[in-house]
């Protein structure tokens, strides 16, 4: 029922793109279809100023078919950028459009479903990739070699006394434990405490505190991370337990479960 499409096509236009040049911008209006004659093109979505790659296409592959097949949707659903110097054949869709309309309904029905599934899959790729990038970003902010505390934490605000391990036994510095887990504590102290004694990642303190259950807890812990709040004159330290004896561990365990 349809004559040879090639004969009906207007003359084919070729465009050249330099490496890094944008071919299609997501959200733009456009109906042309491109076939890659030479080079490589990356298809990507943009999310929060980041490029989320969807696919890399090479010679013989087609770009822009989604906008064409998605009837009534003329906005580009993804961007395309030349990864190397590329040459693209541009098809004007007017002839194809008529043909598409006249396509057997059952084929159109199937193509439509495939299209909807692809839109959905692209959304999922974008979601998963954005999530993964957030995790990577987060990991970058942690100082190398500082293990995170993964355990379940309880927020609290309890006074404690502490002293660096190499200091005199009589020394008593004051601070507040702001959170606690089976793995360590968050300790907040006044910045002036750090004038006479080092409070840096890797330093180890003896700490004694009272839990809200009125049980005493004593342990040795190492500073993993330090956050200064100059305006308030406070330092917040993430600390990991180094030594905590059986009795104290039991007390802590009971408290964490309560």
């Amino acid at each position, binding site marked *: 029922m*349809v004559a040879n499409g090639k004969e009906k096509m207007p003359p084919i236009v070729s465009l050249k793109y330099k490496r890094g040049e944008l071919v299609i911008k997501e959200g733009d209006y456009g109906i042309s279809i491109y076939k890659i004659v030479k080079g490589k093109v990356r298809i990507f979505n943009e999310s929060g100023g980041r490029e989320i790659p969807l696919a890399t296409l090479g010679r013989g592959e087609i770009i822009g*078919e989604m906008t064409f097949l998605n009837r009534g949707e003329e906005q580009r659903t993804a961007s395309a950028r030349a990864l190397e110097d590329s040459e693209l054949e541009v098809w004007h869709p007017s002839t*194809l459009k008529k043909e598409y309309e006249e396509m057997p309904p059952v084929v159109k*029905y*199937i*193509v439509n*479903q*495939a299209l909807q599934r692809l839109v959905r*899959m692209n959304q999922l790729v974008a979601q998963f990739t954005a999530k993964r990038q957030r995790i990577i970003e987060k990991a970058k902010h942690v100082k190398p070699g500082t293990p995170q505390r993964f355990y379940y934490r309880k927020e609290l605000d309890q006074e404690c006394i502490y002293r660096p391990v190499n200091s005199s036994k009589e020394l008593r510095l004051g601070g507040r434990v702001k959170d606690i887990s089976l793995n360590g504590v968050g300790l907040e102290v006044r910045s002036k405490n750090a004038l006479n004694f080092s409070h840096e990642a890797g330093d180890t303190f003896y700490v004694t505190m009272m839990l809200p259950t009125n049980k005493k807890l004593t342990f040795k812990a190492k500073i993993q991370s330090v956050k200064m709040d100059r305006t308030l004159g406070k330092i917040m330290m993430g600390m990991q337990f180094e030594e905590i004896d059986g009795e104290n561990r039991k007390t802590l365990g009971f408290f964490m479960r309560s």
Partner: protein
Amino acid sequence: MTVDQLVYAYVANEEYYPDKTVVIEEGSKGDWVYLVLEGQLKVRKSTNKGNVTVYTLKEGDILGEMLLLEPGKGVRTASVIAEGPVRLGVLDTAQLARDYDSISPQLKGLIRSLIQRLEETTDKVCDLALEAT
């Protein structure tokens, strides 16, 4: 006449399957294209890290469309499993093939590209989903 009714006209035969039947097995050969007439099925892909359910098919959905558009390939790219009892319509493959052949090479190129993209993207989603767990 709605598109759905036009598609129903292609149903050559009906098949019934009880809950949990594997209607299509990934990697197996088969040329049937089905239309879901009643019930739900899940489409599952297996990867070396585990299985991922990629989507759920409901009434009116087509399964096995990749075969129609990539004729001769003949290998199923995912497993399809009944969730509860299902009624499927087997489409007249010969008629479908004739319809598809009536399309111009350029339009076919577009459709092939779409199907290929869908396959690749689905694989990518599986990898990402497993990575995220």
